[in-house]
């Protein structure tokens, strides 16, 4: 994933800093509580929610079991409709493909629709290294980009910022990127949205190249779907001459009809609306309407490794609604940055360690960033059993070996337990040295005894007592 996140501290250290930030906690609490109640109401409107959820799960599972077939079918459909399909095995290759496509247009700037996949591969940074400026056009992404910040939520990347902070970022930074913020900008959300509209409009009107992701790709028709609210997506998907969409291979669904399930599940789970303001669907290119050139970059970047894990692969069903973030007690307190990845919250805790592996401290700590309360599973519109995958990943982390002292202690205990004479001697020794035992463990064991009492060793081993007292 993106280099921004390399060398991140493990979750507990990052979370400890975050929970001490009172402003951050207030912002997160306000936002997540607002949305979780709204979502519950939007879902309660549909008496067949459970059946929609079951269908969403089944369609995604079926697709994953035949992923090779559906990707080949998608490639044929997109090509037949006038698009060009590229395959990228990893982030570097995807970035290379996009940069080359932009160079071929001789443009040096692109407008972007919010896309998790392009954040995951660090596309903006890769394009910058090639002399290409990428302008984020989603309001929250703009806030993050102008603030030189990192996203902390899947749906609302600037959820950690309140309106006063956003006003400050706009007033101070917009001028560096284009049209400055209006004089006397206040922190009313309507005024902030207006400032973003003015700032970005000039970019939309001159843009020749757009980069997007997609929420769904339909194999049988070659149709791509982008679900959004602001209209920045429509601008990027309609006005430029060249459109490049970077999409994870797990986003494919088999049929046009399957959209009837996901276009009901996603908006209600995500922004808690019956339907989001704008949904764009396009199939290849259309003469005289929209981009004349369309490229689809199919991205693996670790997804096939996730697919190989029979328990973990359910994470690939994710439709990036972010309902699990909004109900998670850990996310609400720790915030998105602590997860050290563009995928924060419960889904990030199972997706990131699978995409990146569990070798770095932050990735190995993510499966533990949960109380296993299961609220995430309840709200997941495609029924990903996040607690099950968390426990599965904890197993994987423990199998790769714990602390060296822990391994040494376990090995020593094993040897002693295997040799009865040695065990007897050790027990007697322990009983006689009781007065010298520390209350807390030294060295690496100290943290364990921060919140626990060491068990008291009896004065006399049980087997000695038995020998003396048996009838």
């Amino acid at each position, binding site marked *: 994933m993106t280099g921004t996140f390399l060398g991140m501290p493990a979750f507990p250290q990052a979370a400890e800093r975050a929970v001490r930030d009172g402003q951050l906690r207030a*912002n997160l609490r306000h936002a*997540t509580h*607002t*949305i979780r109640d709204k979502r519950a109401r939007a879902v309660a*409107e*549909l*008496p067949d929610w459970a*059946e*929609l959820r079951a*269908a969403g799960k*089944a369609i995604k599972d*079926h697709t994953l079991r035949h992923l*090779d077939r559906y*990707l080949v079918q998608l490639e044929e459909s997109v090509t037949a409709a006038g698009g060009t399909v590229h*395959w990228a095995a990893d982030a570097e*290759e995807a970035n290379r493909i996009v940069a080359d496509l932009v160079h071929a247009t001789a443009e040096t700037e692109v407008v972007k629709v919010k896309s998790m996949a392009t954040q995951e591969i660090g596309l903006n940074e890769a394009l910058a290294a090639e002399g290409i400026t990428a302008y984020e056009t989603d*309001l929250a992404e703009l806030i993050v980009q102008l603030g030189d910040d990192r996203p902390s939520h899947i*749906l*609302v990347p600037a959820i950690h910022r*309140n309106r006063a902070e*956003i006003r400050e970022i706009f007033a101070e930074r917009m001028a560096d990127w284009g049209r400055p913020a209006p004089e006397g900008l206040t922190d009313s*959300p*309507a005024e902030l*949205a207006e400032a973003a*509209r003015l700032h970005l*409009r000039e970019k*939309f*009107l001159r843009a020749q190249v757009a980069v997007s992701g997609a929420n769904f790709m*339909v194999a049988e*028709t070659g*149709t791509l779907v982008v679900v959004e*609210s*602001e*209209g920045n997506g*429509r601008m990027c998907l309609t*006005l430029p001459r060249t459109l490049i969409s970077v999409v994870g291979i797990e986003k494919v669904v088999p049929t046009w*009809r399957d*959209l*009837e399930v996901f*276009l009901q599940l996603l908006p209600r789970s995500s*922004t808690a*609306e*019956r*339907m989001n303001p*704008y*949904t*764009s*669907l*396009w*199939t290849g290119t259309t003469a*005289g*309407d*929209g981009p004349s050139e369309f490229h689809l970059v*199919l991205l*693996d970047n670790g997804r*096939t*490794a996730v*697919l*190989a894990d029979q328990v973990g*692969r359910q994470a690939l069903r994710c439709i990036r609604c972010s309902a699990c973030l909004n109900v998670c007690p850990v996310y609400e307190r720790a915030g998105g940055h602590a997860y050290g990845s563009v995928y924060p919250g419960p889904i990030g805790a199972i997706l990131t360690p699978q995409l990146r592996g569990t070798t770095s401290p932050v990735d190995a700590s993510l499966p533990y960033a949960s109380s296993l309360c299961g609220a995430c599973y309840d709200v997941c519109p495609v029924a990903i059993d996040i607690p099950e995958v968390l426990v599965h990943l904890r197993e994987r982390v423990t199998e790769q070996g714990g602390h060296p002292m822990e391994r040494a202690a376990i090995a020593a205990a094993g040897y002693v337990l295997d040799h009865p004479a040695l065990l007897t001697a050790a027990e007697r020794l322990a009983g006689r040295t009781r007065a010298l035992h520390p209350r807390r463990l030294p060295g690496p064991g100290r943290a364990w005894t921060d919140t626990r009492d060491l068990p008291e060793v009896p004065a006399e081993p049980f087997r000695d007592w038995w020998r003396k007292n048996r009838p």
Partner: protein
Amino acid sequence: MTSRDLILGRIRAALGEPAPPEEQPLPRHYLTTHAPDEPAALLDLLHRNLADYRARVHRCTDVELPARIAELLATRGTRTVAVPPDLPPDWLGAVTAERLADDGTLTAARLDAVDSVVTGCALAIAETGTIVLDAGPGQGRRLLTLVPDHHVCVVRAPEQVVASVPLALPRLDPARPQTWISGPSATSDIELDRVEGVHGPRTLEVLLVTPA
């Protein structure tokens, strides 16, 4: 080896044995519609849901339509109005604003200076308060309904009103570029509070038209 072969190979290796052809059809036990199967009630539902997401909804008969469109544009103070080339001519019969029919050469920059746009639609979904445009008759290219700040959209009831998403999709052609619109442009990006009006038309007026 190409990356295509590499990725397809990784997928096949990850899945192990080729999956057996499925005998069980996918479980689709959800409802086809949640709405009443009665045209007047459906139209009321569409009206309510459009209004709930801050579209301005008006009703009239087909005979009244030209006068209502003229009235909406006059109230708005519209001086120039863009329209698709095949908009039914009588719709603008009473309009005094300068008319700009899109012959395929209107640029985004030109449309940015236009006050309003008037179009029809492909269909409307009552349950979700959604209008679907598919660049079909009376709708024009996608940019036409995107750049101007004021969109007046005509929905003919009952024939263009469907109850639900599952009933809408079979009536739509995937080969056509589509825009599904549910209320004016909005954002929830500031404290997850919905604010209307970002990049798309900030005012969406829907005219629900019934036969006289």
